[in-house]
């Protein structure tokens, strides 16, 4: 009984959210800023969840997300930049002829292909990242937690150096970056308008991750997080499962990177610096390490705050003609950093701790007798 009530409620909420999106779509121009912030939030929600899979659920402290995002972003961008724009984009050194011919070939394929092509580009980018992750993982995953963090950080920087190096000019356009990246495509022949596409893609991906976490393999990840040695003694192959987690996390981080490329329309290696990984870590920490709901909520909260509400702090403030000191550019990020430190030091579990969203818990608050929390076994 409760199960079906919960499912119905979840479906209704999703429906309401979708309806809001469609309404916003009706007045795209007017709602431009809101839509943009929500899209960015959805993309960051995906990468936050994939980081949480690795760090929060498997206990592997990896700081390499920006690197994998850049792999996805660059691959997707290179595949999607229209053939006619290529010379403009690669104006300094020209594009690698092999890639050009590939793109020419692809652009000649029939329309049905063209409509799924952007999604294929996303997946190709993600697969590429997964392959890199599987190779790198062999080396890196047996390191102790602190060393793993710095090794993955280093890896991220190596990737960045590679992508912006003059030697790869023909492919990645070196330090000039890529632009003229097409925006989000529509889905299902217009059923889903372009601006709603990132939400659907992100939601599907997050759902897949949640399904994985809830499966037996997800439980094995938790065991590794709790106590590696005990997990191994219980028959769980550390290498196999750590690699699994690492590869899947990288896959979805790269996919989010591809979405980011479509969102930003132009990217450069600087976009994927260590700061980006820190930004995602921030979201994961604030939302709660070990909570998917937390990462999603955190993504929306943090992105909205950064882009919107906290801009308030960056403008000079006048109260009754008195110029309030401190309020100028950059203040919002200081406030933000202080809030982050407060979460790290005081509200250590973040928004959700390790809990997920549960209708039962909400209803439980409204009953006289407190129901026993339905956590644990399921």
């Amino acid at each position, binding site marked *: 009984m409760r199960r079906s009530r919960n499912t119905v409620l979840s479906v209704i909420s999703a429906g309401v959210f979708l309806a809001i999106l469609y309404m916003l779509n009706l007045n795209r121009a007017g709602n431009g800023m809101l839509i943009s912030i929500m899209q960015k939030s959805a993309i960051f929600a995906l990468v936050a969840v994939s980081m949480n899979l690795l760090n929060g659920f498997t206990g592997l402290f990896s700081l390499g997300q920006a690197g994998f995002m850049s792999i996805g972003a660059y691959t997707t961008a290179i595949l999607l930049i229209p053939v006619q724009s290529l010379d403009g984009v690669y104006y300094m050194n020209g594009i690698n002829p092999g890639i050009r011919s590939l793109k020419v070939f692809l652009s000649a394929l029939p329309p049905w292909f063209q409509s799924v092509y952007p999604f294929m580009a996303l997946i190709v980018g993600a697969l590429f990242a997964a392959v890199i992750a599987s190779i790198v993982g062999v080396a890196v995953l047996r390191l102790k937690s602190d060393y793993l963090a710095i090794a993955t950080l280093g890896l991220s920087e190596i990737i960045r150096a590679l992508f912006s190096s003059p030697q790869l000019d023909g492919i990645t356009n070196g330090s000039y970056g890529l632009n003229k990246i097409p925006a989000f495509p529509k889905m299902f022949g217009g059923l889903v308008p372009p601006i709603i596409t990132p939400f659907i893609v992100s939601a599907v991906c997050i759902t897949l991750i949640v399904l994985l976490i809830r499966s037996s393999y997800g439980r094995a990840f938790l065991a590794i997080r709790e106590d590696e040695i005990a997990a191994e*003694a219980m028959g769980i192959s*550390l290498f196999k499962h750590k690699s699994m987690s690492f590869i899947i996390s990288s896959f979805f981080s790269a996919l989010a990177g591809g979405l980011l490329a479509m969102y930003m329309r132009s990217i450069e290696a600087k976009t994927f610096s260590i700061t980006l990984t820190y930004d995602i870590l921030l979201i994961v920490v604030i939302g709660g390490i070990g909570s998917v709901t937390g990462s999603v909520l955190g993504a929306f909260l943090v992105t909205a705050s950064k882009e919107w509400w906290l801009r308030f702090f960056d403008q000079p403030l006048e109260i009754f003609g008195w110029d309030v000191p401190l309020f100028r550019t950059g203040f919002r990020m200081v406030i933000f950093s202080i809030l982050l430190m407060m979460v790290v030091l005081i509200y250590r579990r973040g928004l959700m701790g390790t809990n997920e969203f549960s209708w039962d818990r909400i209803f439980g608050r409204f009953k006289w007798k407190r129901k026993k929390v339905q956590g644990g*076994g399921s």
Partner: protein
Amino acid sequence: MNGTVLKTEHLTMQFGGVVAVDDLNIEIPQGHITALIGPNGAGKTTAFNVITGGYMPTNGRVVFHDKVIGENHPRSKMKKIYNGSDRTAFHHQVVNTPDKITRLGMARTFQNIRLFKELSVFENVLIAKHCRIKAGMLSATFRLNHVEERTMREQTQDLLKTVGLADLAREKASSLPYGKQRRLEIARALATSPSLLLLDEPAAGMNPKETEELAQFIKDIKDSFNLTVFLIEHHMNLVMDISDKIYVLDYGKTIAMGTPKEVQNDPAVIRAYLGVEDE
């Protein structure tokens, strides 16, 4: 079926200059309860760790169900320090990771309890069933193996009932009292469907009454799960009560072995535990 479940031949483990396990030769028959005792630091847990694949032995061989699961021959540096017998009898190097050995049917508990603290009692045991899963990651993710999943859960529930922890299924493992945590560790090890169960000081910290219950418990699960049991223990009552055979270690060397009666009266054992009397 009566055969030798576990056998070690000249098993030696040396760390730098310390020979923690020196020329250990044990044979554990199917269905028996065998005990490994000795003063603290005698090398018992190290022996467990080598047998379960935590370390590669310095010398010797571990045979499980007639399959060599660990073997090594000493390298020249070790040869100089180590003076054990039959150094050159072994030629191969075989090492298996602990998870592989568990899947072969050997499960263990730990001296310092290593439960999955933040997870529930139910989850602790359910996770131990993962090693027998047939579904791959993809099919498990999409619940194509929902029958298998349901079976695993039912088996977990049964196991919890057997050890008497069923009513605590939803509790966080770290919130359990000490005695129940030890039982949970045993239940978790049982969930991997082992044929040989290694228990590292299962009665540590228990009072005499709890120890008695534990003794009966071990005998019960041995019968109902058709197990062979190998345990390390300090509580002599427990050891003497349930063991079929005892090996006594001191400073890594085997100083005595035999039935409880034989070992109890062995002067070498008494000396090791109580020290030499001043004349």
